[in-house]
């Protein structure tokens, strides 16, 4: 049985989890209370910026982590890395779903419809599909080592393509409903000082929460494996 070694992140540390919670709480409360600039169409719902965008940040960090651990796995063939990859993808899917839901609610309010033909929305949908396909791929292989290897390959492949699709293409597109892309005046550039004070802590907070969820997931599955192995040995 492979000795599953400890990870670099001080997983059991208390302070960063608490910080994450405090930051998120702060962003939720402050986000509702502070003054926001009055913009046409968006009005008060611009507060959603603190939540919806944070979801995407969290998701992106998770998928980036998945990529790093995929490469690590292909380099070292340590099963622990594979646990991190799948955990990161599942957490990323979770945040992505939240992002889509908050996005749809926001869309209904500002643009009048739950879904539109916007390159960023398409990119979000495609990335959802790609990682859901990853989950399907994992479930179709039983042998542990092969599953880890093949899903790592698909992970890297899909991630690179998604980076292109989500990052490069929307900038090239000629029409978009999202602010800051394709000809709209950017609300991101004009991010008010007060909003900035809430936004960046929110992002950091949610990323910390995402990492926490990831570590919980991995620890849980590691424990399950260990207990299972101990039972079969004794």
């Amino acid at each position: 049985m492979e000795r599953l070694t400890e990870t670099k992140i001080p997983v059991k540390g208390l302070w960063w989890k608490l910080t994450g919670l405090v930051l998120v709480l702060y962003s939720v409360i402050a986000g509702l209370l502070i003054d926001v600039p009055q913009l046409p169409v968006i009005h008060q719902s611009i507060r959603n910026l603190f939540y919806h965008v944070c979801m995407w940040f969290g998701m992106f960090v998770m998928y980036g982590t998945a990529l790093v651990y995929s490469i690590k796995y292909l380099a070292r063939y340590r099963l622990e890395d594979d646990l991190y990859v799948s955990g990161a993808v599942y957490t990323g899917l979770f945040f992505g779903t939240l992002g889509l839901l908050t996005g749809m609610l926001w869309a209904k309010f500002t643009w009048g419809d739950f879904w539109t033909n916007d390159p960023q929305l398409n990119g979000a949908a495609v990335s959802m599909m790609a990682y859901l396909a990853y989950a399907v791929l994992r479930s179709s292989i039983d042998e542990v080592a092969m599953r880890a290897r093949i899903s790592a390959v698909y992970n890297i492949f899909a991630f690179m393509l998604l980076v292109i699709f989500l990052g490069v293409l929307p900038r090239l597109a000629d029409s978009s409903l999202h602010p800051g892309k394709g000809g709209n005046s950017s609300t991101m550039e004009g991010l008010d000082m007060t909003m900035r004070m809430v936004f960046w802590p929110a992002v950091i907070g949610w990323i910390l929460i995402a990492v926490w969820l990831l570590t919980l997931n991995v620890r849980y599955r590691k424990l399950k494996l260990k207990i299972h192995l101990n039972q079969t040995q004794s």
Partner: protein
Amino acid sequence: MITGDLLIIVVAVMAIIFTGLGIYLFSIDRKLTRLEKKQELNNMFNAEQ
């Protein structure tokens, strides 16, 4: 801007929900730590045998 009263209620509810979620996450974390410690003890026990 929504009226002051409604705003306070919404903020309070959100704070309660998120704090509750945080407590839930913490309890899971603590349970996991406890289980992991038990596993370590088990392993040491088995190794000594």
